[in-house]
């Protein structure tokens, strides 16, 4: 069995985090190909349902990237996102998936290098935690190996 490659969903706000991601692209900064970005108008658009659904759809980790605090294009969207991420953490802890699989980051549009850093950080963290209990790919394989032994 090949090494575990996590699948991480990044909800990025259009004005800051996604610009940072685009900048990281323009700067050719390398980060692990385990990150899947979903662009959002504001980090305040992401609600708990979307975070939980991402896990249900087989993500091993989720992070929300918004603007720096106090710098949100829509005044306080990133504070709302922060609160929701904290709430999602609690729920994930309760259901046994683990709250550390979800995180909130704040970036400005010019922080391309930081975006790559965040991607590395999250990749390493999720890799350490192993596959999510809801990750069908990973569990299927485990079941298969279980059957063989």
């Amino acid at each position, binding site marked *: 069995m090949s090494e575990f*490659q996590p*699948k991480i*969903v990044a909800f990025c706000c*259009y*004005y800051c985090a*996604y*610009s940072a*991601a*685009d900048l*990281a*692209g*323009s700067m*050719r*900064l*390398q*980060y*692990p*190909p*385990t990150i*899947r*970005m*979903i*662009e*959002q*108008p*504001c980090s*305040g*658009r*992401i*609600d708990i*349902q*979307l975070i939980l*659904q*991402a896990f249900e*759809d*087989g*993500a091993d980790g989720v992070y929300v990237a918004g603007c720096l605090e106090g*710098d*949100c*294009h*829509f*005044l*306080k*969207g990133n504070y*709302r996102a922060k609160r*929701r991420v904290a709430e999602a953490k609690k729920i994930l802890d309760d259901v046994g998936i683990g709250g550390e699989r979800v995180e909130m980051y704040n970036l400005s549009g010019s922080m391309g290098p930081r975006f*790559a850093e965040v991607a590395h950080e999250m990749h390493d963290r999720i890799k350490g935690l192993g596959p999510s209990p809801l990750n*069908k*790919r990973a569990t299927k394989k485990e079941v298969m190996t279980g059957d063989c032994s």
Partner: protein
Amino acid sequence: MENNTRIGVFFCNCNGKITEKVDYEEITSEIKKLPQVEYVRDSQNLCAHLEGELICKEISKNQLNRIVVIGCAGSREEGFFREVLVKAGLNPHLLSMVNLLGECCAVHEKNPQVKVKSIELARMGVARAALLEEVKHGDVPVNRTVLVIGGGLAGMETALENAARGFKVILAEKEDKLGGRLARVNSIIGVDRKPAELLDEKVKAVTSNPAIEVRTNTRLGDLDGNIGGFTAWLVKDGTETPVEVGAIVVATGVQTIFCPVKYGLSIADNVIGQMKLERLLADGKDFNRKNISMIIGKGTEAFNLPFVIAVKNALLLRQKFNATVNLFYTNIKVGGDNWEKMYTDARAAGVNFFKFEDNIEIAANNGEIIINYEDPFLGNKVPGTYKITSDYIVLPEELVPSEGTEELAGVLRLELGPASFLSIDNAHILPEMTSRDGIYLAGSCQMPGFVNEIEISAKAVAEEIFRKLYDEKVSVEMTQPYVDATKCVVCLTCYRCCPHGAITIEHGEQYENLYKSAAVMNPLACRKCGICAAECPGKAIQLPDYTDSQILAQLEAMEVQP
């Protein structure tokens, strides 16, 4: 519509930048398996001019009604492709961009995982495209009356600029006459005119303008509605009268508070503030060969206005009355048009500048002011305190928002910024705008400013209002979130959380729920952040282009067996 969704996928090589990392054939073979994809094509450079026409032809030939562009970031080329869609007769919002270059090819080395990721990204884009909805344009009737609050120079200037652009203006002033603080000063920084003269001219222009209605002794009591359709209740002598306006400009300015206690002094004839000095100068008081001390510092450093006023008055006293002027300062902030020159001029004219660092003692004694201070520069070489005796001492005043700003902010549903001044929207957008569209700030109500900046500020505000309310009916793209009335329980969550005050609760038989009412987003005031859509506990609100179903479809499409 859903059954005949025909998706066209256009793949851009970006001159080989994309295909050097991923394989076009692999992606297309995967994509072609998807049910609704009817057409796939690649191109060397999709954003080239001729390609646009080609895409147009292919859209009509294959009857495509959703377009996926796999290439670079939406922020870069979305405008171009949307134009192409419009040319082809499609709604511009039926476009899904997949940023394969920025998200995948530029940031990863070529390896099997990148292949998986590229296929997933393409599938996510297609999944989103299948659920895209048309966004129509709508005509919104607007009221072309502007309410200006505050009849100072900024208010009058804004009223005149707005009237010049064809708006009707209501100018509300809380005092019994126009003029504001300008009537109280002696000279204006950066404007080579007498304040009284300038004021007369403006008051005449305002009162003689038929488009401007001046209401004195009036303040804003309450406010309803949104840009293009505000209802403002103006209070005069305890009676409220509603007026219908389209936009509101706040020009309430600043007020000064004279506080000599901070310096250990009490109010006396020779202990005066800068505003009082201006008044005395305007009244023609003689300062001939007097010894005058001025102080800047001790917590008045937040704005550069006090510094520039002090330097201006010091220079004037020195040149006009040949007075001895001692200016005590902790810092000098004179960054701006010609102010640095004014400072060097003051030094050249013989104004004495003394730096102090907290170690200053001021005492008023029988009409004489005695100042003891230690010089931080000389102190090392010649220790000890220095004593200076003066006839007058001029202290800086505190600059605070004018009376009632806090209540006004409450009525307007705006948040106060630093030092309780009204705060502008964040720096990415125009400095005259607030977090609510249709409410603008002019002059010193956001931060103590200068007279020569008022004209620019007033023009900017008037242009912004004109841009929004250019006609009796304005055409807007209805990209604001829409509400499913059957799910809305009128809990007011969205109304409270909207950062731009764009949400109102409407009542009527057309809303099919128990309460016959629902939240409605104003297309002119909404800035499409989607916070309401996320906060709505009943999931009644959906943001076009970012609906829940689109995002969930994207998440679902992510699953690819390696």
